[in-house]
């Protein structure tokens, strides 16, 4: 858990106006607390990610919503997939086997041959 000032202090390439804009753009969603915000671990990691995308990959702020939007979709899919896998993991053995048998191969339908 970190306050706004503390977060600025731990990332030295970070400008307070940049961070305020990222919050206004909803790229980072810290918890509002009065006039300021509380950053949880996920938010701190997200600020670090945005800094890396901006500086190491030289992606400008115009392209940022596209990049973050795609990343969020991927992580959302992975979380949803994990939920399905968790639900399958507690099914009886024969149900799990049946699902496994009916999962199509990622390389397309298998062609039987002998």
């Amino acid at each position: 858990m970190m306050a706004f000032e503390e977060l600025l202090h731990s990332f030295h390439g970070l400008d307070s106006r940049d961070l305020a804009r990222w919050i206004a753009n909803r790229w980072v969603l810290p918890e509002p607390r009065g006039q300021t915000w509380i950053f949880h671990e996920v938010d701190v990691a997200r600020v670090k990610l945005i800094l890396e995308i901006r500086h190491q990959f030289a992606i400008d702020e115009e392209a940022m919503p596209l990049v973050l939007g795609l990343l969020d979709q991927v992580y959302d899919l992975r979380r949803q997939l994990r939920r399905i896998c968790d639900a399958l993991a507690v099914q009886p053995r024969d149900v799990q086997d049946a699902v496994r048998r009916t999962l199509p191969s990622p390389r397309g339908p298998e062609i039987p041959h002998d």
Partner: protein
Amino acid sequence: MPQTPYEVLGVKPDASADEIRKVYRKLAKQFHPDLNPGKPEAEARFKAISAAYDLLSDPEKRTRYDHGEIDETGQERPQRSYRTYAEGAQGWRYQPEGEMDLSDLEDLFAAFGSAGRRGRGQAGEGFRARGGDRHFTLTVDFTTAATGGTQRLSLAPEEWLDVTIPAAIEDGQVLRLRGKGGPGFGGGPAGDALIEVHVAPHPLFRRDGDNILVELPVSLAEAVLGARVPVPTVTGPVTMTIPKGSDTGGQLRLRGKGIRRRGRVGDQIVILKVVIGQSGDPELAAFLEKWAPQRSVDPRQGMPSA
């Protein structure tokens, strides 16, 4: 918070390598121990300046520091990638707006079995699904977590919810508010709001199970002679008797002033800390010089000599 190496040298975080070198040379001359004999504070300052320059003059170290990979002493900071969090419980907060689209869910369920029937154009039962859950984080202060209360949660800009915090809630617990999630589809019920509660640390109180620990400073006179002093508790201040002859580390118990849950209630444990405070008082010093204790005590008895 420790000073950043930029603060130690008094330069801006975007200062050029040249600028940093110039400032370092100036400061190093000013605080060099050979030029300041017998001034330990100059030596400490010189060490701090050298360490800051060591970090900032190395482009690789400087970049790693700016990215938060190492701290001001050059130690690695624990690195956990965004992915670790994104795939954990906190990641739900960054679910794309509108979360998993209901039309996607419909496609998914359609793919499970009913696809055939629907595909053949049979009119009939509409698709009905429960709305998605929404995930939030809420930080509550220590006393609210201990005694219960309400706290306002921001659901979206301009959308608020007053959440009832049950007494004795612990850091990391999740509250489920039925029906406060995404709307249902085709007449299905709304989803739930899942609120992960964080308890902010308190400057005085600490929690130990259902007991609350408080360190209470007392004066020398209060400890030796005994006194009645006010003590803060999570339900407001109470007056407590400090017994005669108390000492630092002594523990007093305020029964029933701890955390209350399901009929059980904890205590508040008050840990005494004797604060001399008036050590500059000439009368006290004069008394101690004359004072011959009946029993002399070595407070460092049993301490290994380092």
